[in-house]
């Protein structure tokens, strides 16, 4: 073994043995530093013959790069080991909770209003609004319910206090969304298609009644809109809203002062196992009242009943929300019990759309 081989063995062995970066640095200096053994040997090259210089020089360069590579490799290995050791020490309990991110909810009434709006928007209906403190005229007279009509008594109306010096009949809290029909006709004329969702009020309180609840009114006026169009519109709505492929509606003759002919609308359903299924079964569930607009109502809205005709319907939003989402008690809608709000509420970004579906 010549001197270079010995050097090689010595340093590669040393590098292999080195336990930390300091030892490695020491070896580097000893071999490749300015006064290192290899560097000194390099200097000796000048005193050699040209021939000798060539062979020894080349050998020295090979040796130098071998040691250098070994040093680098060992250094990387040491760093890896150190990192492994650090990582081993850096264990955290990842089952601990994340930092709190508050999560809010949307009330079922709002969600269902958005669902209803999405469906009717797709069918070309605008959204109209009207005041909740309403005049006697808009709430009753304009809807063909004159003062002594027995139907007035059936509404369980809330009246606003009236200054005795004021001769007008007292205002009422609107008992239905139907006055918005009149306001929308006045504002836009015919043809028109609108829905009007909102709060309504009646003096009634039990498990299925609250003194305040929500309705959505629908109205479509055109040259030849018929009750058959009404049925189709409601069928399409119910299919979309209840998210079932088929529905069957039954129109039952009834009476509302503001429509003529009038119909209560039932939907075929089953209550098997206490669970409501729309579109199948042998039961019928009343879901809304509807009809062709009374000519007097059209006239009250400023529309000529000899030229125009249309349909109107009114539906309980809370009621269809209860049916769709299995919510048992109407009064709980307005009690703001946190447990209820969280259980029946909807995620803020679950905006119902026709393209993405109404519910998850």
């Amino acid at each position, binding site marked *: 073994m010549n001197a270079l081989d010995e050097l090689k063995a010595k340093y590669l062995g040393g590098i292999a043995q080195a336990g930390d970066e300091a030892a490695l640095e020491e070896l580097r200096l000893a071999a490749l530093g300015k006064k290192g053994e290899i560097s000194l040997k390099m200097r000796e090259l000048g005193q050699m013959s040209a021939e000798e210089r060539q062979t020894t020089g080349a050998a020295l360069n090979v040796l130098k790069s071998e040691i250098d590579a070994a040093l680098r490799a060992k250094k990387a290995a040491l760093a890896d080991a150190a990192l492994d050791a650090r990582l081993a020490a850096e264990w955290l309990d990842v089952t601990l*909770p994340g*930092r*709190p991110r*508050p999560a*809010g909810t949307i*009330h079922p*009434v*709002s969600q269902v209003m*958005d669902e209803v*709006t999405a469906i009717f928007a797709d069918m*070309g209906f605008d*959204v109209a609004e009207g*005041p*909740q*403190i309403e005049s006697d005229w808009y709430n009753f007279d304009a809807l063909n319910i004159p003062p*002594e*009509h*027995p139907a007035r*008594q059936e509404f369980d109306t*809330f*009246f*606003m*206090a*009236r*200054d005795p010096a004021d001769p007008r009949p007292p205002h009422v809290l609107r008992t239905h969304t139907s006055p918005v029909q009149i306001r929308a006709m006045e504002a836009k004329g015919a043809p028109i298609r609108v829905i009007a969702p909102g*709060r309504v*009020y009646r003096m*009634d309180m039990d498990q299925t009644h609250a*003194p305040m609840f929500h309705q959505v009114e629908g109205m479509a006026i055109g040259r*030849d809109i*018929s*009750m*058959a*169009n*009404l*049925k189709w*519109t409601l069928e399409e709505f119910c299919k979309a809203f209840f998210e079932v492929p088929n529905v069957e*509606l039954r*129109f*039952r*003759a*009834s*009476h509302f002062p503001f429509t*003529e*002919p*009038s*119909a209560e609308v039932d939907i075929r359903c089953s209550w098997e196992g206490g669970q409501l299924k729309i579109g199948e079964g042998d039961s019928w569930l009343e879901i809304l009242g509807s009809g062709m607009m*009374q*000519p*007097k109502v059209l006239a009250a809205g400023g529309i000529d009943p000899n030229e125009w*005709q249309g349909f109107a319907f009114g539906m309980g939003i809370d009621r269809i929300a209860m049916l769709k989402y299995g919510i048992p008690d109407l009064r709980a*809608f*307005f*009690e*703001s*019990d*946190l447990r209820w*709000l969280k259980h029946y509420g909807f995620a803020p*970004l679950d*905006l119902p759309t026709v393209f993405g579906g109404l519910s998850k």
Partner: protein
Amino acid sequence: MRFTLSWLKDHLETSATVDEIAEALTDLGLEVEEVVNPAAKLAPFTIAKVLKAEKHPDADKLRVCQVLTDEGEKTIVCGAPNARAGITVVLAKPGDYVPGLDVTLGIGKIRGVESAGMMCSERELELSDEHNGIIELPEDSLNSEVGCKFTDWLAENRPAAVDPMFHIKITPNRPDALGVRGVARDLAARGLGVLKPLVVETVPGGFACPVAVEIDAGLKEKGCPVFAGRLIRGVKNGPSPAWLQARLIAIGLRPISTLVDVTNFFTYDLNRPLHVFDAAKVQGKVRIVPAQGGEELLALDGKTYTLAPGQMVIVDDKGPESLAGIMGGELSGCDETTVDVFLESAYWDPITIAATGRALKITSDARYRFERGVDPEFTLPGLELATQMVLDLCGGEASEVVVDGAVPDTSRAYRLDPARVISLVGMEIPEAEQRRTLEALGFTFAGDMAAPPSWRPDVQGEADLVEEVARVASLSKLVGKPMPRETTGVPGPILTPAQVREKTARRTIAALGYNECVTYSFIDGAAAAMFGGGSEAMRIENPISSEMTHMRPDLLPGLLAAAARNQARGFADLALFEVGPAFIGGEPGDQVTQATGLLVGARAARDPWGSRRPVDVYDAKADVEAVLAAIGAPARVQINRKLDAWWHPGRSGNIALGPNVLATFGEVHPRVLREMGVKGAAVAFTIRLANIPFPKAKTPTRPALALHDLHAVERDFAFVVDASVEAMTAVNAALGADKALIEAVSVFDAFTGPKAEEQMGAGKKSIALAVRLQPKDKTLTDAEIEAVSAKIVDKVAKATGGSLRK
């Protein structure tokens, strides 16, 4: 409205089943609420015969009977005194449900003797109150053989006991259907049978009526157009015959006496309410007059009513005798001693009856019918028919009829436009069918003009003809017809900007962690007053509870009450919100939409990271700013402290554009919290959605993005100012120092409190600003930076009265 199948068949020739009739009624708009079929509960019982009856060995009053049944001979223990050999009885077997006892029979041992069922009394089968013994069936009656079904026996021998009863809901427009005949007419028009003719024969009077009648002239105009009556003398008024009692009992009425039962029968049979006076108790002329006011009348319901001036009343020389068209008086009522009866048939104006009935709070069958409208033309025919029935059932002799007034003329006619009917209904109903329907309902035609019958006061126009045709044709046959959108192609947005904004606000607030509530629009008066409301104009005249007396002037009280309720249930940390109407007055339109959020308790639950801390005003501020940004409110706003009284005066602010307050945030006033029963910290925000201006030019195009290659320079400044100086003053002053160069100013420290005062002097604090300078065309030199810095220090010092902190 209730009636039985057999009663219906008095007027309708039909072979339709109960189910077919019920379905047709509902479909016609006479909604069936209930069909009670008494045969259903009696279905299990069979007929048996007692062969032998011996005294029970251990009980004197019990008998051990050998009974022949459809299943052979059985031993049955019976306690009835009439249980004896040879009688035909009604048997209930183990497993049968006995309705009158509300038990399902088992095999029992009675005093040691096993009994295989029971023999029933009438009461046990709910046939009557009879309970003195078990039912004994006449031996030779039809269907009384052992093993026959008891219901078959009843159908043959006591049909009323198994007569199905219909209970239907009558809409206010159909007074005619408040009589069985009206219901029958609808069914006949539908094709479920043939309406039997109603024959009215005049009963000739044998003598002049000794009771004179007179209607007050004013009331003849409006109130009581016609009043007719006659005396029937020498009647015998006892219990009415069994068939009549059965009719009334079946529909839930109590038989009283023949005369009274006759009036009730006409009320339900022909929608013709009548009244009977005991003529012996009437003095002088019968007059229909407006009350003077203050008169008292003991009515047939046993209550005394005090009349208000103008209320229509029937009087004689003694005083008020009857609440006209609503309820008779007790003092002139008929009883078993009545010998001479004055029978009244009048037509009362619906509006007058409704007003009086409502004012006196009396509900009666008569009021119910008169206020919906009975057939005026039938006033006299009804009297004739009732006279005949009284004569048939009570004997006696009828006087001539006395009448004052005249039957009002209600004749009118409307054009039937068959094409319009088809266009409105959307169903091909042939013209002939349309006419046939209307004629079946009693309309008469002259050309294309259809005159409604006198019993249909609801028919007031062409549209009513359409409704009649449609409902008889059956709306359940309607087939949906597509209604395409009025425009083709991609529809534009349908929500108004304000509607979009409301929805955005709602979902943004929920995304910030709040739970949406929907609370009542009415609150109690004290809470309303606390929030700037509670005025008389916003009071509800007839609230449903003392907690719902006033329209809410603000959404916060409802949320605070909700928070208090949740705290009472053990939920201390709450984030609630509502988007909805608040009311600023009592007129239509005095309504604004608010978006209100409420944070109560701590921001988060306890966790290892110490996230739990009480909510504070800066939580509310962060949330309100996030919502305002989401709905496109201007970024540059002012904050003022012209606060409503329910906010903490020092820890709340209005976000405003000049005098226009967009929103308020801050701590809820502690006094309000105490009054509303909310514990702990509570901060809130209210956004007045309508106050937020919409951007002037609506274009989706954004301004070009201006990026600068040169590095921005950030410099920090700390100022010592009076503790009352607001940070915004310093920030705005700094921003104004060099509008071109200064890109942003932010507060990165606020050092206040005793420690700060210790360092900087009493009443002082320190505010530290980070100012970002953005050079646009060349790098800033140190000198330039120095110059801007000096300007900033100068401006802030001037605006705040403070100085740079050394």
